[in-house]
């Protein structure tokens, strides 16, 4: 009984505060990550030689460096050149750039899978390259990339816990603090695990809804 009261009045409010921070990290990072990922993916397929190289290098770097190192650079490194980011902003920047590199892989593959005939069809009608990407290949590539990108967003939910390494106290960070104050490591981390499970479940449900709402005849087998 005492245990339950403790959890109800001490642990949960703290974790709730952490959860709010986590969501504030995850949602913008997912959004910016996907957005930048689409641009990088498009550049890797349709860019000039130089832009392609640049985009490939971008992916090499942001996929290659451990995420914690990237976060350290944004938070501890940038002040050396006079740029100060809050822990929250530094985390969002780190997560967005890293996940965009992964998104761009799925997006690139999806662009390449659009039949080349359609790009000729669009060009023959007088579409500029940008119009062709925007109105013809992107809508199709997006549908095909969605299962992979969704997967990346699920990962993001879990690796968002790394933010506490740069003092952005989100769910895992809060858990660590109260756990070390109370020594109830097992209970607290069980609860945290359950909350992440809930978050990823909700995210997959939303992603499925989006996939289904974008489903078209001829695209069925891209359904996850």
């Amino acid at each position: 009984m005492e245990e339950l009261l403790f959890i109800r009045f001490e642990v949960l409010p703290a974790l709730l505060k952490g959860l709010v921070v986590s969501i504030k990290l995850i949602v913008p990072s997912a959004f910016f990550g996907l957005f930048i990922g689409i641009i990088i993916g498009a550049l890797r397929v349709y860019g000039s030689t130089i832009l392609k190289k640049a985009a490939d290098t971008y992916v090499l770097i942001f996929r290659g460096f451990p995420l914690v190192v990237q976060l350290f650079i944004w938070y501890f490194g940038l002040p050396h050149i006079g740029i100060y980011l809050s822990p929250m902003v530094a985390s969002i920047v780190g997560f967005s750039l890293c996940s965009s590199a992964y998104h761009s892989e799925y997006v690139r593959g999806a662009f390449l899978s659009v039949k080349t005939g359609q790009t000729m069809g669009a060009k023959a009608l007088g579409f500029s390259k940008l119009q062709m990407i925007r109105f013809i290949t992107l809508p199709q590539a997006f549908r095909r990339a969605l299962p992979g990108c969704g997967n990346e967003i699920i990962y993001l939910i879990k690796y968002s816990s790394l933010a506490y390494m740069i003092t952005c106290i989100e769910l895992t960070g809060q858990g660590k603090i109260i756990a070390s104050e109370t020594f109830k490591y097992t209970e607290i981390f069980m609860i945290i695990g359950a909350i992440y499970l809930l978050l990823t479940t909700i995210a997959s449900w939303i992603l499925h809804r989006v996939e289904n709402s974008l489903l078209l005849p001829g695209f069925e087998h891209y359904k996850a």
Partner: protein
Amino acid sequence: MAHRKTILRIEDMTKRYGSKTVLKNASLSLKEGELKILIGPSGGGKSTLLQCVNFLVKPDKGRIWLDGEEIIHSRKKELYAYRQKVGMIFQDFNLFDHLTALQNVQIALVKVKKKTKEQARTRAINELERVGLGDHIKKYPAQLSGGQKQRVSIARALAMDPKVMLLDEPTSALDPELISEVLDVIINLRLHGMTMIMSTHQIGFASELADELVFLEDGNILETGPPKKMLSDADCERTREFCSKITELYGNSF
């Protein structure tokens, strides 16, 4: 015929892939309302020639005039404007898979020609009805037969009000029983005076409708002439051989 004005003129078109020249100094001109049909063996350069005409393939050499104006394809704006005036029909239809038949026809009108959604819709419906697809406008490419897809692609090209149409083996990917529904649409275009270059193996169709046949082999235009002469009494030995073989294969009727 002689007094009609020239719509399209192609001069000295050359295209190389690596060390292989797939099109050599091809020259061609089209008068208003004329239909020229490219014939020749597979790999002879028909698709390359047609795709050089609207610069989907960038020729290594060669000049093009539409309505007396030379097209400089390195100027992007000019290129896009030119392509709007040159309709292209592909062997594999190349419909946009994520769009309905109606949207396939509508999209370039809205995004490229900057018409309003309403204008575009009305025009698109008209064109689809004209090719006999009034009942299928809401269907996606995956829900259409090959013949229907090709007719959508023709409607899509016509909606742009092209001055010339390029048709690259428009019936080659179709099941035999679907060929005639597409050829009927092309015949109709012909009767309405559309200026066209088309490549095809449908030699019966070609001989009845074409003003001229153009024989293309190994990237060379070997001979050009009226269908009757080309099919029965060609000057060039290779033309005669090809024509007799193709007549055997594809018959004289369509």
